[in-house]
């Protein structure tokens, strides 16, 4: 889209706000509308917009495909790992009440709040990376002529 300066300039202007909004939705999801699923799709939509306007190679520099492919698994791992951690701490699977820590007590969340934070992070990572990888797969493919 080299011929459309307006689209390029507006995309560059909007980009930081889209990313910031995605992170806001992710980490403020406990207090306002939001959470991992919403943040994941908003972040992925931002990355896809960047890829559409500046081309796939530019997006590959921002989000390298090997790294994104590993993030798909990492998200599910964070989610299930939270469950395993609660089991190791003596609770049931995904029973967040047992989660506690000794860093800055009172400042950082504990118990249910910490568990929900970790779980939403896992969901957000998986959703973002799956959507981005799906876009890479479709956009990176050459069209073939039918027989």
């Amino acid at each position: 889209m080299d011929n459309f300066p307006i689209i390029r300039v507006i995309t560059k202007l909007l980009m930081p706000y889209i990313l910031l909004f995605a992170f806001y939705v992710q980490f403020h999801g406990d207090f306002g509308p939001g959470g991992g699923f919403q943040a994941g799709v908003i972040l992925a939509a931002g990355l896809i917009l960047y890829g559409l306007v500046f081309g796939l190679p530019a997006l590959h520099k921002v989000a390298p495909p090997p790294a994104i492919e590993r993030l798909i698994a990492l998200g599910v791992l964070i989610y299930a790992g939270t469950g395993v951690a609660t089991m190791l701490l003596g609770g049931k699977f995904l029973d967040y009440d047992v989660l506690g820590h000794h860093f800055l007590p009172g400042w950082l969340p504990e118990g249910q709040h910490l568990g929900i934070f970790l779980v939403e992070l896992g969901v957000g990572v998986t959703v973002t990376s799956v959507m981005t990888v799906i876009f890479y797969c479709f956009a990176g493919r050459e069209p073939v002529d039918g027989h």
Partner: protein
Amino acid sequence: MVMLELIDILVLLLLATTAVAVARIRNLWAAVMFTGIYSFLGAAWMLILDAPDVAFTEAAVGAGISTVLLLSTLALTSREEKPIKKFPILPLIVVVVTGATLVYGTLDMPHVGDPTSPVHTRMEPSFIEKSDHDMHGELPNVVTAVLASYRGYDTLGETTVIFTAGIAVLLILRRPGKLSVASSNRSQPEESDG
């Protein structure tokens, strides 16, 4: 409230019009665009119905990601639907009969927004009261609390489904080791649509 009702009815009529337009149009490119509009109207209606979380997601997914995916598929396949030889009458009859049955079924349903309907009265205490107690007032957003805590197993399953679908798309569409080569040859995949 009358204003909200009017907006509600207007959005609903627009939704119905868009859906019928999608069914009638032969050009696939236009149909995809109408689907994007349809999703966005759906998101707007969800916002009116007090579900901001869902509205966010629907706006980003329906009007953003799925439209882009459908357009990329069109670029890889074809843009026109094959013209039909004769108008199929049987599907229309099936749809009208099914629709009439469903409308008959709604006559016994509680009205929209009725506070005494089973949806609002069957769970005692409701998630709202329970979450206020269990989360020690730290999580005002009940949707997040239900999603990640009360229905944590379900959400783990959903995340796994998304994970599996992503891996499956990767396996189907990526030729081994060719992703980066193919993409650098073809820097702007949407150019033909622009």
